[in-house]
């Protein structure tokens, strides 16, 4: 079969597809299937002024903010739930006004990805009506009016033209430059398969101009094409495929590993303090040559202890505190 080989190193993929000032969207949901390895590489390469969004964010979003990569955050939620109830760099940067942040509801965000993947210009919903998500904007009006990356306004309240008694909230879809989605299986041609919960990630992959897939396993495309109905991302979507076993650590990845509760506890501590956070970046991001060195540093015993138990889909009795 003649197909393009899209396999790259992580360094190459981030260099080619993530640029300063890009609109970046990350896969996963707080502590599940977050593209952490890619996040570390973005920080290492020193990207800045990013417009960042993600399925409900966790430490992935928090690290990018703390490392100074983010100019605008568009999000509904940022927590390593159960470990950091509010992500601590996120909280500090918003409280100190060091980033622009726009709040949405999770539903609206999910639908915005879906609409963007379908090429629709905006969504019309009841969500956010009657709340300050409508009346208080995190990004000032003049920034919306003048920044070509952003829509002209956060939203508009309008009557339904088909039913004038009904009020609707019209929210413009984002113009995502690059999405980064961590999956379980991908072929070198870009065909990809998510196992376990998908969240909004198929939409996110398809909404962006470019897409990087990071994966637990590179699988021969004949194997993935044996049951193509199990694949959600067709080969025409991704631009790069990067093989990164444990690429979502310290988050979970269905059929592979549970979250690393002790690591997330450690992150909770270091992310609450400027100096400790800088030391954490030096130790776990800048001081690490590549993903293999990262895994060596975590250690085989630790990584093996996180392997999910088939039948449960997680590690029963995992040490979490």
């Amino acid at each position, binding site marked *: 079969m003649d197909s393009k080989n899209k396999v790259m190193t992580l360094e190459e993929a981030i260099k080619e597809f993530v640029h300063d000032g890009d609109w970046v969207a990350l896969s996963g949901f707080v*502590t599940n299937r977050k593209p952490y390895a890619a996040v570390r590489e973005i920080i290492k390469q020193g990207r800045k002024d990013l417009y960042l969004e993600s399925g409900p964010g966790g430490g992935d979003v928090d690290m990018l903010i703390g490392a100074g990569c983010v100019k605008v955050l568009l999000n*509904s939620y940022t927590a390593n739930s159960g470990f950091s109830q509010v992500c601590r760099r996120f909280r500090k940067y918003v409280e100190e006004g060091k980033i622009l942040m726009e709040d949405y509801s999770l539903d609206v965000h999910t639908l915005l990805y879906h609409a963007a993947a379908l090429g629709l210009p905006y969504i019309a919903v009841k*969500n956010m009506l009657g709340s300050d998500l409508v009346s208080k904007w995190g990004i000032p009006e003049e920034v919306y009016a003048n920044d070509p990356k952003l829509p002209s306004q956060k939203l508009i309240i309008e009557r339904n033209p088909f039913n004038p008694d009904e009020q609707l909230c019209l929210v413009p879809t984002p113009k995502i430059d690059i999405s980064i989605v961590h999956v379980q299986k991908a072929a070198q041609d870009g065909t990809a398969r998510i196992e376990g919960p998908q969240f*909004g990630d198929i939409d996110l992959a398809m909404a962006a101009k470019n897409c990087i897939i990071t994966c637990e396993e590179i699988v021969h495309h004949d194997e993935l094409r044996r049951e193509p109905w199990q694949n959600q991302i067709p080969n025409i979507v991704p631009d790069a495929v990067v093989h990164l076993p444990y690429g979502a650590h310290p988050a*979970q990845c269905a059929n592979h590993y549970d*979250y690393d509760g002790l690591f997330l506890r450690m992150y909770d501590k270091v992310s609450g303090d400027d100096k400790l956070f800088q030391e954490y970046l030096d130790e776990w991001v800048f001081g690490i040559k590549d993903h293999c060195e990262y895994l060596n540093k975590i250690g085989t015993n630790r990584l093996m202890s996180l392997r999910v138990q088939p039948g449960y889909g997680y590690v029963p009795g995992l040490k979490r505190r």
Partner: protein
Amino acid sequence: MRSMAEWTTRQMMVTAIARQIEDHKAYVIGTGLPLIGATFAKKTTAPNAILIFESGMIDGDPQEVPTSVSDLRISYHSSALIPQYRYFGFKSNAHKKDIITTGFLGGAQIDPYGNLNSTAIGDYDRPKTRFTGSGGANGIATYFNTIIMMQHQKRRFCEKVDYVTSPGWIDGNNGRARMGLPADRGPHAVITELGVMRFDKESKRMYLSEYFPGVTPRQIQDNTGFVLDVSRAEQFHLPGLEMLEIMISKVDPQRLMI
């Protein structure tokens, strides 16, 4: 033998939550005490209740306490894992299919009409304290009846919240319709460590419904930053101790939450 005094506050709250759960109905659940309460109901009074999570995990049967609504512990024994936008569809179609009617919320501030803040304290642009933000809360408040978990303190029960993340009854009767929200859905109960509040059918204003044993209505008013009607209040009725045994042994054996 255990005595009544052995019911902790959290265990009473879990009992109060479980009483809101009807058999064969579906509930949108967050993590924390609502999940514990819903699991308790499933093990006792509502074995066929269905738990739905905004991450798209439907009717899971968690065996261990999950840390988030995306935790793989929730997907155990699920009916299906659906894309999140399908979860949105269930909500916006809720008025057509009366399967899901109720969801659980929590927040940092609440006003007398159940409008809820889980975004920021102080000025939104430069908040004194920033929280996670809406997550799925705003959508739940838009489309469903809600049961709200709060810590009962004067600064949290206030006349006006700093930011409305999740709309309640707005300013009383007809407030929701005026805002374009489904008018027949809204906050039903507020459960705190002191008792259970409900909302008046006509005025939609919060009143004290039940106070936990060891707590007085006066004490609850003193911890509330607005005038609370306590004239209808009754003491919370505790179930038999066999229920406490089930809660401890079957719902949270690791004792992470209760």
